[in-house]
């Protein structure tokens, strides 16, 4: 048996700065490449590809946002559609009252959705995680009922949104939307990466593994959970804020669609919740599969397949693609 000094586990040396920032640089480079592709392709390709890219990027944002609270902190949010719709309807209200550049709509949506996330978290995050999950389901339905009964934003009939003229370097409005969505996706992934690597992410992981133990060790659990809920809600709201201009007609049934909630849970879980790139991989995999299936079979069938894939991954590969890749790396060593 070794001496006592030897059995004390060695503290892990912090990695050099260049290694720690490698992922961030990779995210930025990928983003720059995507942005360049968006701007250069312009009118070269059919608009369908832009629409498909927009949808996939939107799910990158939603999946990543969900993962900040769900994957890192272990609190399952079923109300993605609610936060998404808050973003949507914030844009619609802004559009009706004063017309401003889209960027301000995004900020307003982030503020509103973040605030709702904070308030809701404040009320329910002190209870067991399950109650938070059920409350998020409830929030979606309460919000939907409010919107259905609010005729200013179209009520149950829905509302048409006119796209403004595009100017400057953009060829079409869709191109502008895709460029904004690329920017938002990069922002969301960078935010998730920063959370994961910082004290917030470490604290959240401790909460996920054992909340009581984490609190005993002095992790400020309520504050961390509130930060995560607010961030996650704000990002979901921003994703929703562009949606009215993308579809040009919004009704409560589309804005609060269950498909949004299912996709933004399925994508991180299929991709893997442990790392920032899990939701991205999941969104790209499931998002492209859905685009292909919608075109070749039908949109009901593609949602069915998302559900089946979610259940299959949960039962057979509970840590998703991230888990598979990490296991494979470990075996090679």
């Amino acid at each position, binding site marked *: 048996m070794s001496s006592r000094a030897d059995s004390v586990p060695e503290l892990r040396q912090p990695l050099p700065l260049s290694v720690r920032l490698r992922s961030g640089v990779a995210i930025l480079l990928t983003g720059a490449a995507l942005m360049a592709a968006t701007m250069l392709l312009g009118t070269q390709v059919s608009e369908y590809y832009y629409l498909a890219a927009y949808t996939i990027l939107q799910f990158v944002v939603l999946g990543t946002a969900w993962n900040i609270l*769900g994957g890192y902190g*272990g609190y*399952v949010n*079923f109300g993605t559609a609610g936060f998404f719709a808050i973003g949507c309807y914030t844009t619609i209200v802004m559009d009706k009252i004063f017309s401003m550049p889209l960027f301000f709509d995004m900020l307003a949506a982030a503020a509103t959705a973040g605030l709702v996330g904070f308030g809701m978290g404040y*009320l*329910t995050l002190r*209870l067991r*995680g*399950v*109650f938070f*999950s*059920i*409350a998020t*389901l*409830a*929030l979606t*339905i*309460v919000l*939907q*009922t*409010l919107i*259905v*009964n609010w005729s200013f934003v179209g009520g*149950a009939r829905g509302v048409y949104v006119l796209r403004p003229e595009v100017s400057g370097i953009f060829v079409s409005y869709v191109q502008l939307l895709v460029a904004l969505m690329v920017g938002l996706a990069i922002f969301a992934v960078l935010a998730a990466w920063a959370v994961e690597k910082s004290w917030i992410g470490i604290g959240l992981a401790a909460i*996920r593994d054992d909340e009581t133990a984490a609190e005993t060790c002095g992790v400020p659990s309520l504050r961390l959970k509130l930060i995560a809920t607010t961030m996650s809600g704000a990002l979901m709201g921003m994703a929703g804020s562009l949606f009215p201009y993308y579809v040009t007609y919004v009704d409560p049934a589309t804005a609060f669609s*269950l498909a949004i*909630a*299912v996709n933004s*849970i*399925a994508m991180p*879980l299929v991709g893997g*919740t442990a790392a920032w790139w899990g939701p991205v991989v999941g969104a790209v995999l499931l998002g492209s599969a859905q685009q292909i299936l919608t075109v070749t079979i039908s949109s*009901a*069938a593609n*949602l*069915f397949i*998302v*559900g*089946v894939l*979610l*259940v299959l991954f*949960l*039962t057979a590969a*509970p840590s998703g693609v991230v888990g598979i890749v990490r296991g494979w790396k470990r075996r090679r060593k």
Partner: protein
Amino acid sequence: MDFSWDLLINAIIAGALLGGFYASVAIGVTIAFGMLDIVNIAHPAFMIVGAYLAYAGWDSFGMNPFVSMAVFAPLGFVFGRAFYRAYNFFFERRGDESIQGLAFFFGILFIVEIGVVLISGVDYRSIDAPFLGSTFGIGFVSVPWRMMVPFLVGLGMLGCIHLYLSRTFTGRTILAVSQDVEAVRLIGADPIRAKEVAFGIAVASAIIAGVLLIMIQPVEPSIGREYIGRAFAICVLGGITSLPGTLLASLILGVAETLTTTFFGPSWSPAVSFGLLLLTLAFRPSGIFGR
């Protein structure tokens, strides 16, 4: 809408009848969520399956809804036991039930809903058995049979399950599991088997609730979602594990919803249950009968 006492009393009685039906939906959640700690948010999806089975039986064989209950509820029981075995194997045993288990039930909810859409479309389905069409009146209060039958069946079901849980050995084991799994092991009973039976009962009750639902109103696949909130609101308000609490909370919710519908319009009624749920969670998470 103008206020009148007739309207108020009629609404309260209709609400109480509706509450009896809600009790039949919520009891399965009280068992699964309250006693077994399984957050089965797919419970309303099983109810929708029950409603469509009753419709299929009625449409192809002219099967009386009561016959449907007798045929399909045992199938639900068997399915529920198998389902719990699978859930236990994949999630509970691994200790993964929190995130993965929740997402799993969400996926099941979604698969069942879309599956029903793919098989029978998004049209509203209903059955019009002759005994459901008539109404009887006491004074100025009129009571339709299509509300009275689900009320009576719901109460009966609650009573039977209460008797089963308090009088039989397995029933008492189930109650014991809800308090302390380790202690159940120590006295030599098998907690997994008790949970399996209890989950079977929960699914069977969902099937019966589905048959009751299609007696009350036409059914389409996505209608189940509204019942997630209702069932969990009742369960939480009632104190999660308490059967009398479930009944009382069902009646409160039924009356609150009917009053809202009568005086503010039906478009506001979905928010009642969820509003009640949010308020309960925020201010009294242990419910009325909570310890």
